[in-house]
């Protein structure tokens, strides 16, 4: 019989946002160790660790952003266009909303539709406010909510390897990709595992 104290301990452990419980444990510097719950533009729930297995381009944005955020999508697309179709198929793109309060699933789906983002590769995600802070901290993104609902934020495109470790990041945005960053993407895709 498991003592009450042990059971409660287990409950507490599971209630915490992060535990390393994958079959073969994630490396200590993996962003996927973050255990918060996310959902995508189709409303399907997932965890970051589910994206294990192929390199990812990750960025943060919000749908009502007027200045930079359209550029973030352009930047990710720019990287995609510079890849061969085989390379493209091995890369995933994850955009996480800074504004879960207003970016509901419908808003995310709308952006995906407008920008013609292929759901096989592109995931537009939302999570709760606390998790947004944590993801931003892991990706090195700084942001501040403004009174009118806009955000001031730094903008970066981050390259993760198949295990969720940061390989490269660039703050140079635009449809023409940063050459050093692009080289890192190609290198990661050359060694990456085939898509799951």
């Amino acid at each position, binding site marked *: 019989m498991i*003592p*009450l*104290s042990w059971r*409660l*301990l287990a409950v*507490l*452990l599971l209630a*915490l*946002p*992060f*535990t*390393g419980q994958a079959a073969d444990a*994630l490396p*200590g*510097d*993996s*962003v996927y*160790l973050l255990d918060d719950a996310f959902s995508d533009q189709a409303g399907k729930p997932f965890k970051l660790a589910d994206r294990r297995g192929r390199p990812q381009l990750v960025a943060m944005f919000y749908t009502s*952003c*007027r*200045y*930079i*955020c359209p550029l973030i999508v352009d930047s990710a697309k720019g990287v995609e266009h510079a890849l061969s179709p085989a390379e493209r198929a091995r890369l995933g793109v994850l955009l996480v909303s800074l504004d879960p309060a207003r970016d509901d699933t419908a808003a995310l789906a709308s952006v995906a539709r407008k920008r013609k983002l292929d759901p096989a590769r592109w995931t537009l995600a939302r999570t709760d406010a*606390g998790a947004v*802070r*944590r993801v*931003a*901290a*892991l990706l*090195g*993104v*700084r*942001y*501040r*909510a*403004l*009174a*009118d609902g*806009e*955000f*001031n*934020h*730094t*903008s970066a495109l981050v390259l993760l390897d198949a295990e969720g470790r940061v390989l490269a990041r660039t703050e140079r945005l635009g449809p023409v990709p940063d050459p050093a960053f692009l080289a890192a993407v190609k290198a990661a895709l050359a060694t990456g595992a085939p898509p799951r």
Partner: protein
Amino acid sequence: MRRFLPLLLCLAPAVAGADAGWAPLPGGEFRSVLRYEDTGGVVRVAPFELQRRPVTNAEYLAFVKRHPQWQRGKAPTVFAEPRYLEKWAGPLETGPQSRPAQPVVQVSWFAAQAYCEAQGARLPTWSEWEYAAAADATRADARSDPAWRERILAWYSVPSGAPLPDVGRTPADVHGVQDLHGLVWEWVEDHSAMLVSGDNRNQGDPDQMRFCGAGALSMDDRENYAVLMRVAMLSALEGRDTTRNLGFRCARSPQAPKGKQR
């Protein structure tokens, strides 16, 4: 006794914080040292509760005993850099260099967050911290008093090699909170909102692209260098960083006055 332990764990998430206790702060409108473009520097702070003292080594030790994934050596480096709890004698042992009543330092933002959430609380926001720190023994906002500034500045003159004093040694302010100044830097929930440029002399520099629609935050009240230095410090840190002079305390929404302490 062991039977009661899990009961206590369930019912009193603040057990580890029982020593510190919580002080209620009324909040209100508050003029920040940072010139926020959108609100003109005026910030509205909702009423909240703040721990009276920073979290101690003893309290943090209790936390890592119950949450082994936060023990030194087990906490992944993505959440806590290698110097996490470096001065402790062992992962479950504070040792002679880290007295139980000293504020815990060399903890990352992720670790501090986890501790606060385990208490059913959270880290204070920068605005809450700034609002609380403006107080002295008799007033909620003592920032125009040179003595308030001098006391804070004196801390920077204290050599850093000396061991940290225990928490709770200095008089409480008007809210009943101690040690907001002069002991350790403290994490806030939104330190990553400190969007300041690495060169703080570029006040009013119109580089709009840098922070998506806004230039860097300007420091409005340059005389409040005491607070400016905190902003500078927080803006230099990443979530996994730790330093020998950086600790934390928790905040929470106001609790119901009657019934069991939750």
